[in-house]
């Protein structure tokens, strides 16, 4: 498999694994996540479409499959999934951590008053 293709598949799997076994936010099981991804895909078609149609970014053989949806190499969709998935997984992970810290400080404050 070409290098970029292999890396794109690996990055998507790595992001799935990161959430499944390490950060465990459960983000990928939520309908809101897939709805958000759907909206982002629309924007991606415009931005990535422009970048590859102009082209602002050139892609080179033999590093990708050469299969494009419109002007966008198929690998870019997995790359995009990994990138958007990763930022939202971290966002949720940090959100949960801070919420629990807030609860922790609130309960300890309440405890010291009591």
């Amino acid at each position, binding site marked *: 498999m070409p*290098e*970029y293709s292999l*890396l794109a598949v690996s*990055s998507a799997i790595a992001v799935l694994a990161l959430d499944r076994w390490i950060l465990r936010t459960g983000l990928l099981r939520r*309908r*809101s*996540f897939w*709805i*958000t991804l759907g*909206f*982002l895909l629309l*924007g991606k078609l*415009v*931005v990535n479409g*422009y*970048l590859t149609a*102009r*082209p*602002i*970014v*050139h*892609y*080179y053989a033999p*590093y*990708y499959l050469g299969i494009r949806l419109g002007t966008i190499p198929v690998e870019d969709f997995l790359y995009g999934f990994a*990138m*958007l998935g*990763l*930022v*939202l997984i*971290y*966002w949720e992970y*940090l*959100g949960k951590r*801070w919420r629990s810290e807030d609860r922790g400080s609130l309960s300890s404050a309440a405890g010291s008053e009591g």
Partner: protein
Amino acid sequence: MKGEYLLLLTLAFLPPFALSFHRNVRRAIWARPGRLFGALLGMCLPFWIWDVWATERGHWAFDPRYTLGIRVLNLPLEELLFFPCIGFIAIFLWEVVRFYRREP
């Protein structure tokens, strides 16, 4: 036009950025700047490294006709900015979807 990549990025980024201060999502997005910074940096770091390596290796290249010519780590400045900008758009949309779906 040499500013084309930057213009595309700006057009994509500015509307979500401006709308992120709307009262329906402002608190969710901006209450914890460290959370925002951490999530963006957590995504940007591996993707910057990947991008620098892949550009060096010749997987892809950026057309000098449409980039300003300011290079950082051998990438156009626009390409480095691409990741935090798109990351922010993702977080913004996620919070908008959550708001309309009434998720706590």
